[in-house]
């Protein structure tokens, strides 16, 4: 996408709170935006390195819980009479901690799970997410388990005498938009760098990549750290917007949603998750407004998903690229 086009698009999106008075639509845009960020991070693993990670929601949830716990403060017993505690910290600090912890978890998981590949990796990633969920459910002293952490503070930033509060929707929308743009740029830079080319090499043919001396595991781990940190950021944004977190954040349906966004949009493309995310993030709300039975809404959602993938197996964005290329008779590769 040309620089001008992307700038116009971002500016247009940024102007939305100025003219859109409907807070419900703004809410839908915010939650869709948060899931698009998570989808972009999944795309890094799924699309660019070719590893089908179905446990991605674990990083999302770890970012959410970490940020919530640091902003609320906590106290746990590591031994029967030894407690470790943390006083509540400012929300921005909590969110950064969430990102860091998620990234570190990505590093650990990356090192461990990339000893296996393909189908095994899929299952290990699911198992990991499930174990994290069960820890969140059962380690009640830290996470409150299913009783949920509520009254999570909203983000406020104090710069000198100015204080910005992100409690109200328009400001939070802009925050999410900013985060999305930042993530997009990071991924774009990463993919176009040497590390990125190594990742694509390993996606296309891992043994060949290894044979020319590319340290496959190292690049996979880099991708996982960035991917996990980004998912963690999405989780932190989520938790300070919804302002409650419980083990339901690890629901498999969230991973499914991210996967849908990435694959229908076009995995391995930069704008794929954006298109897929916009489509399948907004679709459920459109269906909801149509006053059809809830089960039928789900069925339509599922059918549409199957149709998109069936007719455009590579995703929407590559299909658009192809038709545009045919139309303009030159390759477009910056999408």
């Amino acid at each position, binding site marked *: 996408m040309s620089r001008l086009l992307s700038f116009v698009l971002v500016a247009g999106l940024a102007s939305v709170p100025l003219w859109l008075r409907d807070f419900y639509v703004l809410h839908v845009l915010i939650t869709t935006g948060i899931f698009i960020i998570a989808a972009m991070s999944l795309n890094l693993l799924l699309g660019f390195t070719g590893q089908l990670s179905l446990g991605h929601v674990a990083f999302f949830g770890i970012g959410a819980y970490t940020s919530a716990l640091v902003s609320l403060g906590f106290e746990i017993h590591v031994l029967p009479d030894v407690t470790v505690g943390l006083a509540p910290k400012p929300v921005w600090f909590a969110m950064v901690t969430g990102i860091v912890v998620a990234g570190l978890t990505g590093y650990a998981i990356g090192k461990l799970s990339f000893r296996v590949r393909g189908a095994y990796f899929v299952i290990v990633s699911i198992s990991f997410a*499930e174990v994290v969920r069960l820890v969140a459910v059962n380690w009640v002293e830290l996470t409150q388990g299913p009783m949920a952490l509520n009254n999570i503070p909203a983000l406020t930033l104090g710069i000198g005498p100015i204080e910005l509060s992100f409690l109200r929707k328009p400001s939070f929308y802009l925050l999410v938009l900013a985060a999305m743009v930042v993530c997009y740029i990071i991924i774009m830079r990463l993919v176009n760098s040497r590390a990125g080319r190594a990742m694509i090499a390993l996606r296309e043919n891992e043994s060949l990549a290894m044979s020319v001396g590319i340290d496959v595991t190292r690049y996979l781990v880099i991708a996982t750290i960035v991917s996990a940190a980004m998912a963690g950021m999405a989780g932190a944004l989520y938790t300070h917007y919804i302002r409650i977190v419980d083990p339901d954040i690890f629901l498999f349906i969230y991973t499914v949603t991210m996967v849908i966004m990435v694959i229908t949009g076009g995995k391995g493309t930069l704008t794929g998750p954006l298109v897929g995310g916009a489509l399948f993030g907004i679709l459920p709300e459109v269906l909801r407004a149509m006053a059809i039975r809830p089960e039928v809404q789900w069925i339509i959602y599922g059918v549409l998903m199957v149709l998109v993938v069936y007719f455009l197996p590579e995703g929407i964005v590559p299909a658009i690229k192809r038709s545009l290329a045919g139309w303009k008779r030159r390759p477009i590769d910056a999408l």
Partner: protein
Amino acid sequence: MDQLLQHLLNATVLGGTYALLGIGLTLIFGIMRVVNFTHGELYAFGAYCMYLLVMSLNVNFFLAFFLAVALGAALGGAIEILLLNRLRGADIDTTMLVMIGAWIVMQNAEQLTWSGIALSINSPFPADPLVVGPVSVSWNRIYVFAVAIVLIGATYYFVNRTRLGKAMRATFQDRDTAALMGIQINRIHTATFALGSSLAAAAGALLGPVFVVTPTMGDLAASKAFAIVILGGLGNVVGATVGGFILAFAEEIGAGYISSGYRDAMGFVLIILILLMRPTGLFAQKERIG
């Protein structure tokens, strides 16, 4: 000691059904490399078929079982032909997404038809359990265990000793050569998916009367099936059988002696531990990379 015996008995009976779930999926996920998210739905479908046949249409309990399995095979075949055929060359995650869509549609169709209320299926077995000294087990579960063992044996025989089974294994090891040898690739794909699905439906038809039937019943069953497939090694029928029993024992002993809160995590913890030590599962060959 009594408690331990009861745990072991529970685990053995449970293991049979887990194994049944596992071998169905190991054929599809392991051999066909389809991340089959509809496996749980075929399990639920088998149970709902039993409900429809036994409770609404008053069909004989045992005949209904055969019909449910046959219907499961038919549904599996239909899914393969309609959805997977065209995507034959596509990536694993593209087919996975189609399976996810089918999963969503099937589960909500079940809720649309029967609502979310739990349904129970009457079985002809006596309600009182069989008591042998300090341990007891219900007749229904003994029946389930027996049928599961028979089905597992039959599947093993079919896959490893018949020509069709050999054709299946050949197709998924090297499709092009198999095609050159005259094997009808499309039919093999359909048959394999139908076979795996019929086993899932069988598990559901067996367990429907033991438990209750709900639209979401397949989700937990599917996640255990995936765990078993990995434990046993992709595509390995014997491995999946052993994996099923291992999972059942781990759950029973873990829940009985460690913590029931983590019972359903046992499978996942086991997987992670085993895969870290033996990256290809307990039995399978090394997975080709690239």
